């Protein structure tokens, strides 16, 4: 067991973890952060995407011990004071989700994309979310949502 200190959605945790424990399993099973989900076992689908120190990571490819000292934001910590984050709002308004399983990861990837490039082109949006698979939407409304919330968008 290894001791880690990590802040998740604003709460500090201090835990002993097995060195092999993946961050996503730490979040889900130890902290009850089940808003973040597991969709594959090869880091292809991105459903488990969270922010680690402000950058998006696939939490199935990060070990819990690697998050030691870090600050994690999950989908559950994205809205503030009961108000949706603009990306969450945009996904709702653009009908950018159907079953919603990929949505937490897709939203977190979008938050990171927009923090790096506030006004991405359609091609840049596609590149930015290429690591996140969605089986329901065909991506068109996701792209629309990202555009709506980008600085060139209407919001």
């Amino acid at each position, binding site marked *: 067991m290894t001791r880690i200190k990590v802040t998740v959605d604003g709460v500090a945790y201090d835990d002993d973890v*097995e060195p092999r424990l993946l961050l996503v399993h730490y979040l*889900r099973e130890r902290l009850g*952060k*089940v*808003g*973040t*989900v*597991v*969709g*594959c*076992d*090869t880091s*292809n*689908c991105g*459903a488990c995407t969270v922010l680690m120190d402000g950058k998006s990571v696939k939490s199935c490819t990060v070990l819990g011990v690697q998050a030691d000292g870090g600050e994690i934001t*999950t*989908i*559950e910590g*994205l*809205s503030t004071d009961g108000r*949706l984050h603009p990306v*969450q709002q945009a*996904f*709702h*308004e653009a*009908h950018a*989700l*159907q*079953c*919603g*399983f*990929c*949505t*937490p990861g897709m*939203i977190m990837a979008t938050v990171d994309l927009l923090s790096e490039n506030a006004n991405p082109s359609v091609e840049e*949006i*596609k*590149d930015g*979310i*290429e*690591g*996140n*698979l*969605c*089986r*329901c*939407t*065909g*991506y*068109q*409304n*996701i*792209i629309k949502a990202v555009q709506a919330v980008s600085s060139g968008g209407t919001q």
Partner: protein
Amino acid sequence: MTVTEERPTSEVGKARLRKEDARLITGQTNWTDNIVVPGMLHLAVLRSPMAHAKITNVNIDEAKGRPGVIAVFTGKDFAEEQGTIPCAWPVTPDMVNPGHPSIAVDEVKHVGEAVAIVVARDKYAAQDALEHIDVDYESLPVVLEMEAAVSDGADKVHSHIDGNQSFSFVFDAGEAGTGEPTQEAFDNAEVVVSRRFVQQRLIPAFMEPRSTVVQPIGDGFTMWTSTQVPHILRLMLALTLGVPEHKLRVIAPDVGGGFGGKLQVTPEEVICMMVSRRLRKPVKYTESRSESLMSAHHGRDQIQYIDIAAKRDGTVTGLKVRLLADMGAYLRLVSPGVPVLGAFMFPAIYKFPAYRFQCDGVFTNKTPTDAYRGAGRPEATFAIERIMDELAVELAMDPMELRRKNWIKHEEFPFTTVAGLTYDSGNYEAATDKAQQMMDWDGLKAEQKQRRESKDPVQLGLGISTFTEMCGLAPSRVLGSLSYGAGGWEQASVRMLPTGMVEVVTGTSPHGQGHVTAWSQIVADQLGVPFENIGVVHGDTASSHKGLDSYGSRSLVVGGIAVVKAAEKVVQKAKRIAAHLLEASEDDLDFKDGSFSVRGTPDSKMSIQEIALATFAAHNLPDGMEPTLDSDATFDPENFSFPHGTHLCATEVDTETGRVTIRKYVCVDDVGEVVNPLIVEGQIHGGLAQGIAQALFEEAIYDDDGNLTTGSFVDYLVPSASDLPHFDTDRTVSPATSNPLGVKGVGEAGTIASTPAVVNSVIDALRYLGVDDILMPMTPERVWRAVKDGSSGGERAAEGSLAYSATADTEESAL
């Protein structure tokens, strides 16, 4: 008298944002894998690495001694009680069903089949213990290719049955009395075109891996499971395992996509029930993605021989189809029914006078196939739309002209086809005209000509798919005539709560479709109650006790109509109470915008929500009336739903690299009236993505030993945002005449229509090089080979692919 009636804004037709989204965008979800029950044990499944082998010994001793391991089971432990995975669709009376154990006992028949189960206190201990189970296998011959499997002397998948054929289903329009004798049509044909097409094997690949939790409660059980069909599952588990039906509650909590892939009674669900019953402990099993890809059922996988007969002027005179449909190693819930559904769709929108269909179901040592979005209809649409193009080439006709010449004209509806279906409404001309205009069809044609003449290395192709489909399963008596094991009705209840809120209970089981939103819109209109005041309950056999669930684009056209019927009954009951309280005759009451008013006395009115409270109090009701407005309805439609549309695809094909890029995709769909245009468009988008993916990206590939080589998302190419084009969508509206809302199914349309549009466009780009077919998925390698050889792209698409090589270049006739 001038009536200036103010039309209330109708909820139906409004692009309402979804109620479902609030929890999904904030992570407040309840996926099965999130569920934790006190004392819950975790299952891990040891799966067969062999495609066909005898199990000679399983040693579990070491695994049993591992820390935290509660129990280890093999097939022998459940041999007596596991029964067989049910097959509810015996398509012929003599169909051979070899039985499908949930856990293999003596023999494994495909890679990924369950062989042993570890039960441990956590999933890590369970997974670790799998490595300590030793299984001895004695390998048996592996049967993989259908054409070889049905040839004389072929090795067998099941030693206890004759050959590898499960059934041979025939529909002959001449014999059925719905058409002329087919052979005669072909004997007298001026032109016959024959083709062999391949529908590659696909994997539904829903995003949420399947997960099941079973909790024993008293002498009963509660099961949470990632399913499309909680009601069917409860019934089938009761029949299979002998759990009394009323002692079993099945809950489909949040379900992350299905696409037919969760229309199943899975071995894992049966195993969880058996283990929980044996140990009297709650258990959970959640599959990994690789387990999902190799053991959850696959879709498609047909070899299609299709012959079309026509006159020189382009009038079609006959159609013959023979299918080999790969069932995989076993029959699952509706495996045989999938290709048989296609039987009625090959004639599509065309007026064929003669038609014969035969489908042989074949066993191979592969994962069983079953429903995948479209289920039988994409396969049929592909074959007919591909061969219409081939016929056009043979006749030197424009492919759209050939279609126009043969399709059912809008004034000919209702139209009974050669397959015996009565299409209620449609307008193929209108959808096509609109699509061609949106596409700038003529402009692209001119560009194609110019690129051809300038010998541009990047050629432009234009592809057409003018499709229809049958969905909204469906009329129970028709399903009965097709030997389906259940009916096709759907159930709904509308409950008026004392505070004026409305609770709708539906037997459909949404997993992304937005029923909560759409049903709220329907009920808002029916009862005149605000959209926000309506809630929808679904997916739990305890609260929604009756239903046939969600698949086959049936939810709105069957389940949504049941909601309408239940709401109508509520209004009827409320009217009686309103008349009583307003001291008027029922005949003098008008119901509008949620209120009953006495005609001629506009101030004398009462809202249905006020009546709900008065009914709850029950202080003053008409004599003999039960104090409730709540009503149930069970709706059984008289016909299927027949959406249609025209899909056009322009692709740029790089003749030097084989790369295919979709330049423009236009579709005009006619799904009748629309409850929520936002949701409808979303369904079309997602459907297109899956249909395009079949054309360009996806294939479940087995190597010579029967190993699935596309067993992860590294190899099974679910498209990403970068892989798909922009979709230009629009609609025409030909209301369905079979239901009061005029709606048609939309869930599968995009998938059914799009695949041939893409393939036709690529062939169109390369036709001048002698290319008349390219196997799907049309990878750059296959396209490049086709360009190089002027052929169908060769047998081998990828390392390890069998790609139906046996007779890939042979031209065979359908019958």
